[in-house]
């Protein structure tokens, strides 16, 4: 059997379980909020129209953005609660995902219920009043039962949406079937991507089917079929809760990783080191780039690797370039005083933004450095999702006069394909990416030093910043990974032939660090 498939299969109980719990909780909460709101909205014109409008607007916010917005919102609320009441809550993971998904679940439920209630035959409502029902009795005995089929249809729509959108909660630190998709996209592991999609679609279909059976049972007044559908749901939820309850871990320590291969490898290494020192270790991977530092400061995670240039621009909002050494020193004291975060030290390699071209194309156009690019205003530059909004790009654009170049944005893994196929003439890349050499790309020189240094540095959260055992177990990583070694490790995960998983690559790197001969791997 395909090893990727086996790995995916092994992860299924955890991913599926968390996915089900999150989706079902959001649906229950969404329905619980929407039904009373729908009843009020159907009875009052003043409330109904604005409410439906508002919920429709929420629906137009892309799922990923809505989920991401809840993280800073909850962080602020958590800080407020800590100041006011001395209690705080975790702003990463389950809670923001739950709230965002609840909002998503609301529209179809609310809209169907309001439409159904407003569309009831006035003669029936008159009859309910005429036989002596109070408004409440009319609602429960006549209006809601008659609106039930449409309400259930709305719940089924919401179910399919929510199960699908739950996959997007991975970047805010909530494990779901989306982990397969995000990780798979990063490592070009299409088995993972497909596995995640099929699992999510399968779950949506199963839930939809159970609700349909429940609906038919209600319609046909068959208690037996209703019980069967209820049993199906209960079994699904119990099966999902099972693995979570069985291994409810003492929280232990949590290693964070952003959403690319190098981060997965480094997180696996850190987890191995800490595990060997006796810590119970969990990982939260695929965190958004700026989410990671805030998660560390809030102790949602306890350690991860970031890059000096990223922190300098994104966290400190600095645009000056004081030089490699001074930048790291300033960052160290700023992180400590601002967040209580310890910058433990550099790992030894740099993962800088660089711009790369196909060697033959660069040669043909006589382009060697970024300065030469300005002479070819018709070139197309490809970048990842963040480069063009980052200060580095503004500095480069100003320094070399390339701000008017045509731009295209790609999912990071497709950048190399874009430049090889000629969709883009030059692309942004990361210096530690093993594929630069593999594809024979030329890195353009930066004679004006417009790009800052991006030394990989190990950051430790406030709860373990002064924990000697914790720090000691990670110390072997400091200064131990030269650029060539990291490039090689990244390539092992990225390449199409003889692909390794991040965990295998981490083990390979660790062997290397321990001074043993690394196991022979074919290129």
């Amino acid at each position, binding site marked *: 059997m395909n090893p990727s498939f086996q790995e995916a299969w092994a992860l299924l109980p955890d991913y599926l379980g968390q996915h089900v719990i999150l989706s079902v909780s959001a649906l229950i909460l969404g329905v619980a909020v929407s039904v009373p709101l729908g009843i009020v909205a159907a009875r009052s014109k003043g409330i109904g129209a604005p409410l439906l409008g508002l919920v429709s607007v929420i629906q137009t916010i892309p799922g990923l953005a809505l989920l991401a917005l809840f993280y800073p919102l909850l962080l602020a609320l958590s800080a407020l609660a800590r100041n006011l009441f001395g209690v705080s809550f975790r702003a990463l993971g389950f809670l923001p995902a739950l709230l965002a998904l609840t909002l998503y679940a609301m529209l179809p439920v609310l809209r169907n219920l309001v439409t159904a209630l407003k569309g009831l035959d006035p*003669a*029936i409502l*008159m*009859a*309910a*009043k*005429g*036989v*002596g*029902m*109070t408004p409440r*009795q009319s609602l429960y*005995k*006549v209006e809601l*039962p*008659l609106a039930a089929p449409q309400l259930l249809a709305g719940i089924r729509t919401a179910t399919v949406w929510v199960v699908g959108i739950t996959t997007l909660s991975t970047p805010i630190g909530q494990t779901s079937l989306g982990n397969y998709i995000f990780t798979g996209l990063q490592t070009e592991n299409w088995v993972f991507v497909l596995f995640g999609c099929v699992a999510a679609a399968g779950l949506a279909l199963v839930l939809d089917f159970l609700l349909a059976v429940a609906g038919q049972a209600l319609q046909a007044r068959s208690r037996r079929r209703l019980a069967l559908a209820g049993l199906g749901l209960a079994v699904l939820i119990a099966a999902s809760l099972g693995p979570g309850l069985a291994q409810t871990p003492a929280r232990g320590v949590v290693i964070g990783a952003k959403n690319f291969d190098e981060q997965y490898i480094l997180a696996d290494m850190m987890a191995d080191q800490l595990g060997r020192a006796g810590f119970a270790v969990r990982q939260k991977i695929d965190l958004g780039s700026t989410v990671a530092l805030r998660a560390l400061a809030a102790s949602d995670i306890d350690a991860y690797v970031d890059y000096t240039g990223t922190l300098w621009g994104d966290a400190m909002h600095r645009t000056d370039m004081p030089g490699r050494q001074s930048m790291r020193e300033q960052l160290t004291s700023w992180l400590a005083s601002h967040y209580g975060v310890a910058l433990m030290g550099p790992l030894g390699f740099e993962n800088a933004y660089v711009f790369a071209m196909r060697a033959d194309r660069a040669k043909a156009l006589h382009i060697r450095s970024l300065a030469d690019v300005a002479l070819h205003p018709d070139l197309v530059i490809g970048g990842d999702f963040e480069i063009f909004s980052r200060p580095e790009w503004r500095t480069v654009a100003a320094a070399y006069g390339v701000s008017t170049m045509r731009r295209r944005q790609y999912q990071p893994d497709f950048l190399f394909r874009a430049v090889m196929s000629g969709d883009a003439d030059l692309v942004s890349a990361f210096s530690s990416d093993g594929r630069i050499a593999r594809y024979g790309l030329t890195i353009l020189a930066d004679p004006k030093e417009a790009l800052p240094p991006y030394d990989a540095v190990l950051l430790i959260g406030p709860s373990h910043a002064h924990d000697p055992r914790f720090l000691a177990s990670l110390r072997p990583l400091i200064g131990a990974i030269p650029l060539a070694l990291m490039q090689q490790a990244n390539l092992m995960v990225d390449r199409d032939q003889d692909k390794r998983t991040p965990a295998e690559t981490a083990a390979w790197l660790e062997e290397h660090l321990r001074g043993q001969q690394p196991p022979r791997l074919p290129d």
Partner: protein
Amino acid sequence: MIEILHVSKAYAGSGREGVSDLTLTIRQGEFLALIGPSGSGKTTTLNMVNRLVEPDAGTIRIEGRDTREADPVQLRRGIGYVFQEAGLFPHMTVAENIAVTPRLLGWAEARIEARVDELLALIRLDAKAYRDRLPQGLSGGQRQRVALGRALAAKPHILLLDEPFGALDPVTREAVAGDVRDIHQSLGLTTLLVTHDMTEALLLADRIAVMREGTLVQTDTPHELVSRPADSFVAKLIETPRRRARALAKTLAL
């Protein structure tokens, strides 16, 4: 006895039928038909009796008691009402529809079940075949019969009928109407029927009250109405049944 005293109801700016200064007494045990063209205010008058519509002015007394003193919900539970086109609850079975008001009144389940069987017999529907059917599985006449059963379930003394036979075919219509009159008689009800069909009114009612544009034109027994119409409007109303009777007599005589 229902006493309607100087009752008015106006609907500002809408096409709905208003009523102005209407006084009418329906005697104990009487079957009174309220007749008039659409817009004459007859349904509004009917609905004011059980406070589905609240009058702007005037007083309505039932058994001598001002309806405004009663809780409207309790009042409606004590009055039988059959709606236009039945108004059955589509999600409830025949038995559940009939049992609605007794359930609202908190009767014991066994008493409700017994009452449902009694009513099914009264409205001449086979309990075994129809008890658990939904309204959509019934014919128009059967639906009207169930609606009548529902109206009578809690043993009211007063029965309000809002054009209950309007949607029925002529044969069914006659059968159901005849049953309604028989039930009125056997239960000793006080019945107020709203209709726009003079023939029906003449055949069923003890007395007929003719309405036009929110006021009463004439209130009399069928015989008085036919022999002494108060004005040309009433004369015109009874012209149709007269003509039909003559034509029918001619046909039958041949």
